[in-house]
């Protein structure tokens, strides 16, 4: 199955992915409306995008109280807008902090742009790649800890 993976040391934190995502999905530029969110730690030069990993076992799907979330054939997570009550339980359930809510409490979840993710296409450093991969489990904390260790930064 094809997934988006990230090479942390290549991510420059330019947030072009956020812009590409909100533009494709909403027709406007707004990081608050993108399905991918870059977390930055300027002091240590660290950047990392959060987005849906298409986990086989998806806690947001299983914890959604109204059954509004479901798996699509392509492996992404779909939101049934009518069933969703905007409670935000999916946001806390996700192990990768990949879900956020828009202004009307609607969950924003990556749909891989139907198989041609725009964030990957526009990533200027190729930190994001869309590849055949069975699993990608690195968390932001893992990536930041690894780079800090490589660079001998401890605080």
């Amino acid at each position: 199955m094809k997934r988006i993976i990230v090479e942390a040391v290549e991510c420059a934190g330019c947030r072009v992915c956020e812009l590409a995502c909100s533009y494709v999905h909403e027709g406007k530029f707004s990081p608050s409306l993108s399905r991918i969110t870059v977390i930055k730690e300027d002091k240590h030069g660290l950047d990392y995008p959060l987005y849906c990993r298409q986990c086989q076992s998806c806690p947001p799907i299983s914890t959604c109280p109204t059954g509004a979330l479901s798996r699509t054939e392509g492996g992404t997570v779909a939101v049934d807008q009518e069933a969703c009550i905007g409670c935000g339980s999916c946001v806390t359930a996700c192990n990768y902090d990949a879900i956020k809510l828009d202004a009307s409490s609607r969950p924003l979840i990556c749909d891989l742009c139907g198989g041609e993710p725009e964030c990957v296409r526009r990533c200027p450093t190729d930190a994001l790649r869309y590849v055949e991969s069975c699993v990608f489990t690195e968390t932001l904390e893992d990536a930041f800890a690894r780079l800090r260790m490589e660079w001998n930064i401890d605080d």
Partner: protein
Amino acid sequence: MTELGGYAGKILSINLTKREAKTVDLDKSLAFQFLGGRGFNSKLLYEAVGPDTDPLGPENMLMFATGPLVGTMFPTASRFNISAKSPQTGILGDTNAGGHLASEIKFAGYDQIVLEGRSSSPVYVYVNDGEVEFKDATHMRGKDVYETDDIIKDDLGDRRVQTAIAGPAAENGVRFAGVFANLMRAASRTGMGTVMASKGVKALAVRGTGSIEVAHPRRFERLVDEIVVEIRNHEQYEGRRRMGTTRILLMANAMGFLPTRHYTAGSFEHAEEVSGERLAEEFNVKSRGCFACTIPCSRFYVVREGRFAGLYGEGPEYESQGSLTSRTGNRELELALKANDMCNRLGMDVLTVSECISWAMELYERGMLTREETDGLDLSWGNGEAMLTLIEKISMREGFGDILADGTKPAAMKLGKGMDLTMQVKGLDLIMADPRGLKGFGLGYAVASRGGDHLRSEPFLELNDDPKIGEEMFGVPEATLRLADKGKGKLISYFEDWNAVIDALEPCKNIMQNMEILTFDRASEVIEATTGMRMTPAEVRLVGARIVNIERAFNVREGIRRRDDSLPRRFREEPLEEGASSGTVFDQEPMLDEYYSERGWDLETGVPRRETLEGLGLSKVASELGRIE
């Protein structure tokens, strides 16, 4: 809300004395005449800040403005200008930086944020979408830029808030303190941090959740795609990606215009050791980018060995790296990284700091300054330890550092010596390119509206040294020959107008101007696709000329005339002795004549002529200047 695309559509005015905030809609005709960013600031500065205004008084206004491209996916559109009357120069103050602050201001709903008055107690101003809060900053007093950023993010419980911070140097009244975004995006020329601190403001913190839409999405997208490809295929792409602007240090050295030991030489025997190549190979670990950048050119470095092991940070850029090495004669790159880090944390402008230090070193080497006067510091060329000590002392206004903390021109007055050796124009210290090796750059420094600086014009075409370009563009082959004098008035007017447009739209000048991406023709298309405003390439250039002229008018009202458009005596009288730029001086007066003629300014006084201003639609300015003369 204005119906123009690209703009957020609102201007936020904050009165610190009354603790009030009000919002007004962006005026469409202002957008058409001045586009945004530096254009908006300079227009307001001319109208609202007069010659009676004390730069550090409550009546000065501190303006943050960004442009219509920022917040969109337009490559490199990330920048903002901060303007006010400058406490360093007493004339127009203005500075520009990138990072992620400008886009956040747009998403919060604003094109410009204006601070006026003075808070009775220390605050930081928190702009959260439509809300403005004055938050207590008493506990942040004396905290450096990094510490302050942490405290604010903890205080607000939001790590994604963007900050613009004044460091301890600003609070101590150092006149060249900057405002720092993303910790090390230094908006640090002309003392805007000093103005912010004088208003009782430690920081601006911004969070925005809104969106920006463009007028013609398909056309906009096509232009973005075209430009991304152009950048990727550009011959400068790889070098910028790897080294940022530090890629030019060795070239400046080879061409003999790398200021060395306070401009006493044009090349540095240790250039390789302090080059961008060495920084990239030995210290850089990761690239970092400003908002929406497609290069990106910033680099995070880590020092793993030696006495500075454990030091890390972002940058530096060419100006800082050269300033803290060849300009002072320091050959230790790691020490320059340390000095740069200190300036960032303390919140000071590196160029001015290094001018203060290297000027003092020259006086010391000439025997004009004794150890008693320098608090016992040995200011021999290249003494790195003394540099670090002086940086600290300047930031605290302590001892000899206190004398330097107003800049070299006031320091020379206080000491009663060395004025002739201060490398500044209108009180702003010169940059890292010796004008004897780049005559057009030199003219640019002489006339720049914020004082001796290259970013008002930056005629990079001189670096090609190709007469065919000059012939084609200006009908004068010499215009693009770096050591020639002819045609420079045309060259500088053109580049000043161009840079003013870039500063108004707020993408990155390094890419959009230096790489010849956003030409007037291209800008005309981009402006229409983004905002919906139809403007011919000639009209786009007129916006640039309008900005340059209103800035000149501001400075004329402050007393600036032709006599002030002058480079330090050294460049006019003493040729460099060695290297590829030796044997020639800066022949100022004919170049000024040509420039004023090109601009439509009076040859004798350097004041814009009435018909020039009227032709730009600045009739009110014309009548006011008419009364002054």
